[in-house]
């Protein structure tokens, strides 16, 4: 049960897909730490690197998360239909990209475990505007209200393991951009000097 119509949900899924594409590129550019600077607005965002259950290809999905007692939690707000969630069920061994580094992790669906509502509430608080956009107000809703509107949500726990190798693969863009800017400045100077003479 959600508080929005199926049409609105479909529109929001499209919007989040584009937003996620942007967020993933921010991580790949090495800006993962910086996009977590405004948790109340944008939320806390990590990336799950998982394997497609049909294609076997590596997939990356940005999600909101909360860290509680050393474990990482996230939720599939659109329920069990989310591809990344189904991929996690098929292959729970994943890699997570957090602001303090990349880690191998084991994913477990804990939706049906007892007393998980406070954890889900914290994940939703950490989702910034995303929860509010789908009509969920984790800071003000009572436990009963929150449980009702998040009935279809899935809650996943990631148990952090050893650090994973690798880092942002698009870091080279920054020196390339700097080189381009310096080139433009240099070209302008040459051009201006020629004009003067």
């Amino acid at each position, binding site marked *: 049960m959600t508080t929005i119509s199926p049409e609105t949900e479909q*529109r929001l899924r499209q*919007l989040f897909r584009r937003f996620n*594409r*942007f967020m993933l*590129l921010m991580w*790949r550019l090495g800006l993962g730490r910086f996009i977590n600077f405004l948790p109340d607005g944008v939320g806390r965002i990590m990336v799950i690197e998982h394997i497609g259950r049909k294609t076997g290809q590596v997939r990356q999905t940005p999600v909101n998360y909360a860290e509680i007692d050393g474990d990482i939690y996230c939720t599939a707000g659109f329920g069990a239909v989310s591809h990344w969630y189904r991929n996690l069920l098929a292959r729970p061994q994943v890699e997570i990209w957090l602001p303090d580094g990349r880690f191998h992790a084991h994913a477990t669906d804990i939706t049906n475990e007892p007393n998980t509502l406070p954890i889900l509430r914290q994940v939703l608080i950490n989702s910034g505007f995303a929860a509010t956009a789908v009509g969920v107000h984790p800071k003000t809703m009572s436990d009963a209200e929150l449980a009702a509107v998040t009935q279809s949500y899935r809650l996943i726990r990631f148990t952090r393991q050893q650090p994973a190798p690798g880092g942002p*693969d698009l870091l080279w863009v920054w020196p390339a951009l700097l080189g381009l800017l310096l080139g433009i400045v240099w070209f302008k100077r040459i051009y201006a000097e020629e004009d003067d003479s």
Partner: protein
Amino acid sequence: MKHNTKRLIYWLPRVLSIAFALFISIFALDVFGVGYSFGETVLALLMHLIPTFLVLIALVIAWRWERVGALLFVVLAGLYLSVSRAESWSWIIAGPLLLLAVLFLFDWRVRTQAQTGL
């Protein structure tokens, strides 16, 4: 109108256009890391950068002829909305384009008034 305000009105649409071009260029970086060969990567990058090139062309024209540039920004926004069937998310791209058009028109108006002494 103060000199600093005029400078702001002149530079704001130009700087925002460059920032917007950089923003949409980020999406072109998707082509890296998907297993393309060098040639395929260059081709894919050029194709993904077409929206950036269009914005830069509009900016170069608007820099000199604000009204024509503003019109081009409106056309780009209209094109994007029609291609994306005006879905609500498409305003993330079309909205800033329309804003840039308004800012360039405002700049043109302010400078015209200053020149005619109105």
